[in-house]
């Protein structure tokens, strides 16, 4: 945006689309910067049609738009060269359909995960996603960032239970994929493209989900091990046993100190959460045998699992100068990657705390220095790790100190064909107005 008069004109146009009270201008936006880049405007459209109008306007004037929900993940991604419009989805909260007998719900992208969960809990139903900060994290943000928490083990990922999505493409076409029924193969699976697209293909305006019957009771069995190798050995036994836990989470010794409900200790823990009757839980107890150090239930159990969901944010708060790296990989490589992480952290003088959905192949590693560390040290840590990733693994540096962001690429080792992804991007957002520069291209 070149001049003050252009800015004034843009502001009045955006005001005309969304209403004066739903437009905010710089400098009030300073606390809402995107990795230090302050948007010129923030708009909060009240309907998908207003989203279309905003995106059409942005296309016409070459404005860069960043879709936003609860601002729980905006610290991630590569440095944006430019941000003109922050587009909040928080007014899109309408329930599109909900019949508890269908075990499905369709809801606006601006609804928070906590709101959605409590709405369906009233009917003994259960929304399986358990991201960090559910009181703030919105449905749209959840899908766009493809987040998942410990429930990923037992309930699958968003790609398994998101059954429909409505969105506006970067080039301002209002469209949908899927629908509101649990089984549906009509048309291309647009949900898959939008989940984990980090807001670069379209602005999600609403989505439909499969719900699950809420478990009547759960219990967490905490097992402790002297080494990561023993913990992974235990994971292997669980994965190959008839047991069917809802969560199976590895917590490293350093991570224990960041996990209220587990507390400090020098051993590696595996927290296994099971759901079922007393008889079923008794079977877990007998199968798991003497490895179980303790059992947790009720409020303490809730605190523990929320802390594990919130792990990344607990890290940011306690260790603002940390690296937070998320990695997906085949099950058989988890042990080797844990070893690599330990070596990389040690050789760069960083403290390492790791948690992970070790039954599905997802690790979150936090690394921080004892005192100030050089930017070069962060950069080298990331590049060393990237070179040691196993085949078929991918990683994202979700957090790093601001001064290191310039030198660190967020995304690495993406297994899918990059040019095909670029084709998709060009079709849906030809002018690259959505989250320009923050994702893969």
């Amino acid at each position, binding site marked *: 945006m070149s001049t003050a008069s252009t800015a004034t004109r843009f502001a009045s146009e955006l005001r005309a689309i969304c209403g004066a009270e739903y437009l905010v201008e710089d400098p009030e936006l300073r606390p809402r910067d995107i990795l230090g880049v302050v948007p010129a405007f923030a708009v909060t459209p009240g309907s998908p049609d207003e989203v279309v109008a905003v995106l059409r306007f942005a296309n016409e004037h070459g404005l860069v738009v960043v879709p936003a929900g609860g601002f729980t993940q905006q610290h991630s991604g590569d440095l944006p060269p430019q941000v003109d419009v922050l587009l909040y989805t928080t007014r899109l909260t309408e329930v599109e359909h909900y019949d*508890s007998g269908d075990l499905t719900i369709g809801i606006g992208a601006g609804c928070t995960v906590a709101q959605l969960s409590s709405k369906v809990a009233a009917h003994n139903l259960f929304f399986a996603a358990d991201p960090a900060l559910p009181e703030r994290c919105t449905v749209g943000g959840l899908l766009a960032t493809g987040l998942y928490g410990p429930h990923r083990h037992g309930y699958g990922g968003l790609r398994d239970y998101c059954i429909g999505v409505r969105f506006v493409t970067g080039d301002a076409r209002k469209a949908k994929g899927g629908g509101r*029924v*649990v089984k549906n193969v009509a048309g291309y*699976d647009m949900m*898959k*493209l939008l989940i984990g697209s980090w807001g670069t293909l379209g602005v999600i305006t609403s989505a439909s989900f499969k719900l699950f019957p809420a478990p009547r009771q759960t219990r967490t069995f905490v097992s402790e091990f002297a080494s990561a190798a023993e913990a992974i050995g235990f994971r292997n036994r669980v994965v190959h046993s008839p047991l069917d836990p809802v969560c199976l989470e590895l917590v490293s010794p350093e991570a224990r100190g960041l996990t209220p409900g587990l507390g400090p200790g020098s051993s590696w823990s595996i927290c296994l959460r099971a759901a079922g009757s007393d008889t079923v839980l008794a079977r877990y107890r007998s199968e798991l045998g003497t490895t179980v150090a303790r059992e947790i239930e009720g409020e303490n159990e809730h605190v523990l699992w929320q802390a594990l969901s919130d792990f990344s944010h607990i890290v940011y708060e306690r260790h603002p100068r940390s690296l937070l790296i998320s990695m997906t990989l*085949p099950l058989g490589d988890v042990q080797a990657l844990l070893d690599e992480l330990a070596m990389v952290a040690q050789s760069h003088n960083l403290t390492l705390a790791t948690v992970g959905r070790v039954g599905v192949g*997802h690790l979150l590693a936090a690394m921080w220095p004892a005192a100030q560390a050089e930017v070069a040290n962060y950069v080298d840590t990331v590049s060393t790790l990237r070179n040691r990733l196993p085949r078929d693994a991918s990683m994202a540096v979700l957090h790093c100190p601001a001064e290191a962001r310039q030198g660190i690429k967020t995304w690495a080792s993406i297994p*899918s064909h990059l040019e095909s992804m670029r084709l998709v991007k060009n079709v849906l957002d030809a002018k690259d107005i959505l989250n320009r520069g923050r994702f893969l291209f």
Partner: protein
Amino acid sequence: MNLPEVVGHLRKIAGHDAVLDRPEDLMLYEYDAGIRKSTPGAVVFPQTTEQVSQIMRLASSVPIPVVARGAATGLSGGAISQPGGIVIATSRMNHILEVDVENQRAVVQPGVVNLQLSEHVSHLGLYFAPDPSSQKACTIGGNVAENSGGPHTLMYGVTVNHVTGVEVVLPSGEIVHFGGKAAESYGYDMTGFFVGSEGTVGIATAITVKLLRKPEKVATLLGIFESVDDAAQTVSAITAAGITPAALEMLDGWTLRTIEAYCHAGYPLDAGAVLLIELDGLREAVEEQAEAVRVVCLEEKAREVRRAKTEEERALLWKGRKTAFGALGRVSPSYYTQDGVVPRSKIPAVLRHIGNVSKKYDLIIGNIFHAGDGNLHPLILFDIRFPDQLERALAASTEILEWCIAAGGSITGEHGVGMEKRDLMCVLFTEQDLDVMTSLRNAFNGDDVLNPKKLFPTPRMCREITGPAQNPVLVQEGM
């Protein structure tokens, strides 16, 4: 380049004995398991990804339409060639390339038969979960193209939930990889996008699938009801009780009597409907759920609830379900089946609607379907030798699908859109929805060489269909 020249090139690529072009041979490749036909110009049987790539490069340069074909068990016309086009038959690409127990994955060529994979890994205590009724014949490549389901998708999901990676030959001939052995990866989920794209984006030449651990315990129950209504209510009641069975199938009285006469599965001859309910998992959990299901069924007016006592009894109950379509061949010269989906709470209502449609068009319609996820397979009986009967069958089918759409459902749960339902896509999706999807297709398959005239209607068709479609299938195919 004329067809004989194309055939010559195909022989150079795949080998002299790997191409069919005589009319009497091509006749065998005219149809799938549905009711449509079209004769290809040549059928080629590649054995390697590289050969598929060369074939695609050739086809794009001519250009000549191409369709990949597995066992052609599909019902929507997805594997039917354009007249004079090339069929890439995957039957010689039938190797299981890798079984990776540690990572719970297998890598297979597209021509591997669905059930064959489960049998191959059975001794390891593993299996491949998607189980279409045609699983003895259908190929995993076909499952990927159509995103196939089966009875156990209720708990385990459709094919896309079990595919983590694909090697794909694009229309340009380029060989690319999407995903891998990890459950998920950063970057766009190209694997998820590819599965179910009905052969319009590329041809899968290697597929990485999840292998699941076989459940410790399986319980199979047969709930016997006096009426379809009671059985339908029970489906909702089971869900409301917080039980997710592995499979929950319904057969109405007419259908189960027809099946029983054919394969003696042990179904009661005088029932109004039965529910075939399967629970699997941890022994203790299965026993509790089986008891809970029994109680719910009896509360919902089941006349009787039987439980398979042996593996043989269980297999027999499933044999009845899975050979249903074969059984119908004995009683009707032709049948037409649909694949609509409704929200689960609408099951009783949609069954009443199907009853009315049956009366209106004076056709027998049997019901056999995946009740647990609201996926209907109404079986419309007719005699294809009488054109008016075919016309009525298609009209009845369209009316049922339109009801499904109006109820918030879909036109296909697992069979795919293919040729047969592409015009109904205009009722399910807006022109702009379809524009977004077709623009994606065009990015990969811009010249429409790969499986043209499938999945998406032409914009012209959409504009012509206003209000209830007047048998668009008939109009389109000149039947």
